[in-house]
């Protein structure tokens, strides 16, 4: 399938990259069909709307900069996309990049969870007040590095 993307113009995508969001994404509820693609810049991904090229989100695996991250969402939310076993899920955080890129943040309070088997996704809301909408990725990554060294 060929789709128009915000980042790379028209690209060919595999059907296995298509993810259906039955509830949309908060604030963008009417868009339900997305494609998950690797960004050229590692370790980011694009969640690209199939219908509107301008609608695309940058994603990151939250465990990369917060190894202590936990998906504190109610079980019913996971069941909404058929997840009963965490083995079936992929977890991402939406990244916001301001003008000063070093201040880029990840939203850990509203993670994107994807059921790998059914390729359905949902933005969930974490119950844990530890997770906020803006976590400074570089700062928190540096804190993890210091712990390891």
């Amino acid at each position, binding site marked *: 399938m060929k789709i128009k993307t915000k980042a790379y113009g028209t690209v060919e995508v595999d059907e296995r990259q298509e993810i259906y969001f039955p509830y949309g994404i908060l604030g963008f509820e009417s868009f339900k069909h997305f494609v998950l693609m690797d*960004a050229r*810049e590692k370790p980011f991904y694009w969640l690209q709307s199939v219908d509107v090229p301008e609608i695309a989100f940058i994603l990151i695996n939250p*465990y990369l900069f917060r190894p202590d991250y936990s998906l504190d969402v109610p079980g019913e939310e996971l069941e909404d996309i058929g997840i009963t076993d965490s083995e079936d899920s992929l977890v991402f955080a939406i990244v916001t990049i301001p003008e000063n890129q070093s201040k880029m943040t990840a939203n850990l309070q509203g993670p994107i969870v994807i059921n790998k088997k059914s390729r359905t996704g949902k933005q969930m809301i974490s119950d844990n007040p530890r997770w906020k909408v803006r976590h400074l990725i570089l700062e928190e990554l540096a804190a993890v590095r210091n712990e390891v060294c």
Partner: protein
Amino acid sequence: MLILARKINESIIIGDQIEISIIDIKGDQAKIGIKAPKNVKVYRLEVYEAIQQENKAAAMAEPGSIPELELLKKNKQKK
């Protein structure tokens, strides 16, 4: 906005499927119980709004703005 006065253990019903009860009131905080169908999502308003707003900010990202990130190699996607 419709305003109703309710005491502890009293409820209101919205439509025929959404029931809201006052469980407890302590000082300026009320504990509210909500019964609603599965497809009706219930969130704290300020959290819902914060996430919605953040999504809108995130969607503004320009493709050229993504920096390269040097990462720890050992932290793979966990369960």
